[in-house]
Structure formats: C-alpha cells, structure tokens
C-alpha cells in the first residue's frame, strides 16, 4: 500500500438522510441507549484521521470461506452462497485494501454467541465469522451459508429477516461503517424495525441482489451481490 498522508482534504460528512436516527421508537433498545443530545461538530481536519493499519498478513487463507474456516468433521448444513460486491466511496472510486469483517447466524437461525438462547441447533462445522481485504477494484468475496431468520424480544413474535452483519473501516477513521446486508424478497423486511429504521429511499441499499454468475463452479452455490458506499475524499485523494 502506498504511504498515505495522515490527513486528506474534504472528507464527505455523514449523510444523516441515509442513516437511521439514534432514537427509533420501533426498535425498543434505542430508547435507553441512543444519545439524546445533538452531536457536536468537530473541526474538519480532526475528522480526517486515517483508519487503523492492518495488512494482508493479518488475514488467514480461509478467513473469507465460512464454509471451511471452522469446519471440524464435515461441511456446514444449509444453502451455500457467494456474497460478493465492491466497496466504493461516494464518488464511485473503489476503496482498495480495506478490511471487511462479517458475522451471521447459521442456517437454522442460531448464532454461536454464548448469549444466544434461541432453541435452534448449533452447527459444529460453522462459526459464522469471516473477513477479507478488498482488492484494487474494491472487490470482496465470501463463501458462506445462507443465514436463517431468528426470533428476538423486541415485540411479540418478532423475527429478524435473514441478514449478514458487516463491519468496514474504509480509508479514514470517520469512514467506519457497521451495517447489515439483507436478502431480496424477504417478507420479514416489512416487519423489521431495525431495517425500517433507515430512511425510506436509503434502506433499499441494504438489500443484496441475486447474482447467478458470482463466479466459481456452476451449480455449486447461489450468489448475492452487495455493494457498499462509504464516506471518502470529496476531492482528489492526497498521496504522499
């Protein structure tokens, strides 16, 4: 990676017309956890600090393949899927060499996490966590199992739609994004207060597209494509 200057000009602001409000009545946990006071502006130069450093040496050979990175004695159960896409900034420029971390429930809708008490089976061959770095064109690629829906306590018989959690850094400390990818045609989206918390016209960007030609061997795995757009330099990026 070229050495980048610590500061770059014109980092675009967080677009609050695209992001959910902190207090979102349908999602009950926000009531006691979301900040209530207006956010305090920070001088621009302070917002343009670079993201933390990491490199290819941090990523294991199977980290991107959730069907194999925790396999103990066989293959995980469920529908194999490729999840591919690009990480771009608002100017359409690829964000290269950026870390993409994902985690998800297994095919039965159960998370490995110790506090998940949903009465559905764990899969001994599936952890549900992965990561990779984007390539020069901003592309990332995961092979995984389609996650199941699961119930949560927000309201009576509340079920989360199928989703995969994403965590990204981008180029700047301030371009950090934590989000969720959903699947096209999921009837639970209409009932999900977390998905619905993002403004109409923006939330649709969280739904992946079916992509039958995601690569790999035909007849092996379905493909879903999900592009992500991060804050970036609004003008020419500065390289030292």
């Amino acid at each position, binding site marked *: 990676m070229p050495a980048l200057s610590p500061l770059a000009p014109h980092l675009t602001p967080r677009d609050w017309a695209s992001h959910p409000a902190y207090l979102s009545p349908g999602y009950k946990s926000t009531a006691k956890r979301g900040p209530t006071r207006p956010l305090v502006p920070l001088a621009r130069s302070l917002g343009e600090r670079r993201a933390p450093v990491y490199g290819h040496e941090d990523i294991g050979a199977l980290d991107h393949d959730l069907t194999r990175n925790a396999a103990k004695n066989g293959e995980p159960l469920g529908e194999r899927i490729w999840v591919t896409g690009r990480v771009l900034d608002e100017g359409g420029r690829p964000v290269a060499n950026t870390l993409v971390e994902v985690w998800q429930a297994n095919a039965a809708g159960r998370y490995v996490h110790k506090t998940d008490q949903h009465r559905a089976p764990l899969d001994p061959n599936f952890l549900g966590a992965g990561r990779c770095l984007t390539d020069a064109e901003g592309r990332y690629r995961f092979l995984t199992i389609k996650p199941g829906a699961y119930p949560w306590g927000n309201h009576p018989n509340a079920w989360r739609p199928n989703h995969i959690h994403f965590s990204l850094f981008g180029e700047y400390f301030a371009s*950090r994004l934590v989000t969720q990818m959903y699947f096209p045609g999921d009837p639970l989206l209409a009932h999900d207060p977390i998905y619905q918390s993002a403004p109409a016209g923006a939330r649709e960007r969280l739904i992946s597209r079916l992509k039958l030609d995601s690569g790999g061997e035909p007849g092996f795995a379905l493909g879903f494509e999900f592009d992500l757009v991060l804050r970036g330099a609004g003008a020419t990026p500065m390289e030292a």
Partner: protein
Amino acid sequence: MALKQTPSQTVGPYFAYGLTPEQYGYDFRSLFGPVLAEPQAPGEHMRLTGRVFDGDGVPVNDAMIEILQADAQGRFVASRAEAAASGFRGFGRCGTGTHASLHYWFDTVKPGAAAAGDAPHIDVIVTMRGILSHAFTRVYFEDEAEANSRDPVLAALPAERRATLIARRAAQPGGVSYRFDIRMQGPKETVFFDL
C-alpha cells in the same frame, strides 16, 4: 456525489465471535484486541478503562469500544510494518462483556499531542445493540489541565459538558490507569461528535 452512503445498522448483541473472538474465548484469531502497546513501546504505559451506562444508569454488557490514538510522540502509526517495529499499534478493540464488572480496558501508552494547540487525546468509537449508528467520542486527560484549557475542541463545549470527556488518573501499584466512563444518556450524557 454519484453514489449515496450505505445506511448504518446496529452491531447487534452477537458481534463477539466475529469482531472480538479471542477476548470472548472463541476459536478464531482476533485482528484487534485491548493491547495497543507492547512492553517495549516508548512512552508512559497506562491502562484506559471504564464502563458504558445506559439511560437508566445500568452498565451495558454488550458494547464494543474501539480507540485510535497517536503514540507518545504524537505521531499516528502509518503502516503495519511500523507498528510491528515499535510495538505500538495505535488501534484497539474491546467488548464490555467479559469483565465481571463490565469494564472495557486498553493497555496503551499516553499519547502525545498530535498537533500544535491540541491537548493529548484518544479518539473513541462506541457501538452496541440499541444504537443504530456508532457514536464518536474522545478521551482527554485530567493531568493535562493546561493543554486541555487551550484545546479548541474542549473550548467549544459548555463547561459542564467538557467534564464528560476528561479521564481520571489513578496511580496504582500495577501502574497508571485512567478511568473513562461513557454515559449514553442522562444529565451527564457523554459528548458525542458529528465526525
């Protein structure tokens, strides 16, 4: 702008095996953890620790805290190789769910001032179930009163809110620690930045 930002969503309650696996005892390597500074890293070694409180004053057991800071000389780490050579990574990640009293902690060095006029500080990202977009805040140090009095970010805040960003120093037999609690709501709600 040709494209629109992807909306943020909550990190949810189950991030630990993906983002902080070693801290929580999962069989997956952590890319980032609570140690920013190895023993050989230059500077005053310190622990930053605290809790996150919700609007009822209840400690949050499923928050994830990330910090980014300059080294003791006020420089930001520019590459992985540089971090490996100095023993200082400049970035850490810690969940609040493994300590008995729900503290987060980081073992680091006290940062130097990164720019003329700025007081030494640590930038913080707070995320958890129940917040839909991560929150940015910042740690300043109680024993830097003079530098704090000149810092433009602190100066722009009302005096009663400034105190929410000041970590309290405690010298203990095990070393120096700074206490920084984060209050999501209430009369002492921590200052969060639109960064």
